[in-house]
């Protein structure tokens, strides 16, 4: 019973708002630390790849960005399910706060992949399974953002967007498997985790960078969700109180 109450308490914007505000600096700090460590390992320490030369170092952002782009979509779908099932206000806000970061991650994955593809495959882009599904993922993000932006009423936007996320998430495995029939150029094998060719420094560099991206995404989402909360809850007393004492631009 008390557990339930607690959950509800933190799911309420009034309590989540200051909590989020307090946590942002920690996530930023942790992200920076992981980032520096990852870059140091990956860019300075890790040895040259015997197949790809130094070009492989793109992996230290390509793979984290790709992972995060997929992961964030799943998290958004999770929030959408919660929101539609229990009608909680927070879930819609979280989904909306995550979307831009997710879209940027998908974009980064495409960008770095393209920059990697040119030297390795001799072309910026091929219509291969992985690449295509990543592109579709970007479209799904953009579709979600366009839909929620087009609906003015926040509650309706949340519900409609949530529905879209759930439908889209069903689509993701379908896309993933459907493109298995395709010839695929994007080989996970060139730097395979299982093979010994991947030095431990490389592996650690990649994992550290992934942690860095993860923490960064959380920090960004929290930042954005705080703004969304103020906007949405502007008629509640706690926002009025909050607005009365913060000075735009130099709040703590």
């Amino acid at each position, binding site marked *: 019973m008390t557990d339930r109450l607690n959950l509800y308490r933190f799911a309420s914007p009034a309590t989540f708002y200051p909590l989020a505000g307090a946590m942002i600096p920690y996530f930023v700090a942790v992200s920076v630390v992981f980032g520096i460590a990852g870059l140091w390992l990956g860019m300075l320490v890790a040895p040259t790849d015997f197949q790809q030369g130094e*070009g492989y170092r793109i992996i230290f952002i390509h793979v984290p960005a790709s992972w995060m782009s997929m992961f964030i979509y799943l998290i958004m779908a999770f929030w959408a399910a919660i929101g539609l099932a229990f009608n909680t206000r927070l879930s819609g806000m979280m989904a909306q706060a995550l979307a831009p970061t997710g879209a940027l991650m998908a974009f*980064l994955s495409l960008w770095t992949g393209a920059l990697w593809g040119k030297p390795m495959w001799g072309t910026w882009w091929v219509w291969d399974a992985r690449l295509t599904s990543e592109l579709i993922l970007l479209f799904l993000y953009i579709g979600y953002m366009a839909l929620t932006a087009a609906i003015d009423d926040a509650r309706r936007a949340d519900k409609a967007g949530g529905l879209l996320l759930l439908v889209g998430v069903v689509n993701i495995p379908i896309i993933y498997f459907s493109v298995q029939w395709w010839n695929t150029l994007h080989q996970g094998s060139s730097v395979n985790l299982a093979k010994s060719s991947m030095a431990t420094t490389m592996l650690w560099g990649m994992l550290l960078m992934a942690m860095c991206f993860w923490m960064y995404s959380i920090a960004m989402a929290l930042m954005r969700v705080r703004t969304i909360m103020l906007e949405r809850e502007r008629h509640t007393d706690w926002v009025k109180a909050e607005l009365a004492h913060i000075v735009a631009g130099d709040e703590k």
Partner: protein
Amino acid sequence: MIHWASFSDFIAMGGYGFYVWGSFGMTALIMAIEPIVARRNRIATITRLQRQLRAETRNTAE
């Protein structure tokens, strides 16, 4: 322990400098711009809400 012989080697990235730094550059750019945009958006929202709040209190006071 450091893998590079010189700084210019590091920049050249064994001939892949354009691609590697292009990737890292774009990532750095985005990770720099995204928080700035989010923060500006926040400031704009707060000033707008404060203006609305002031207008409201003025109206009800009348």
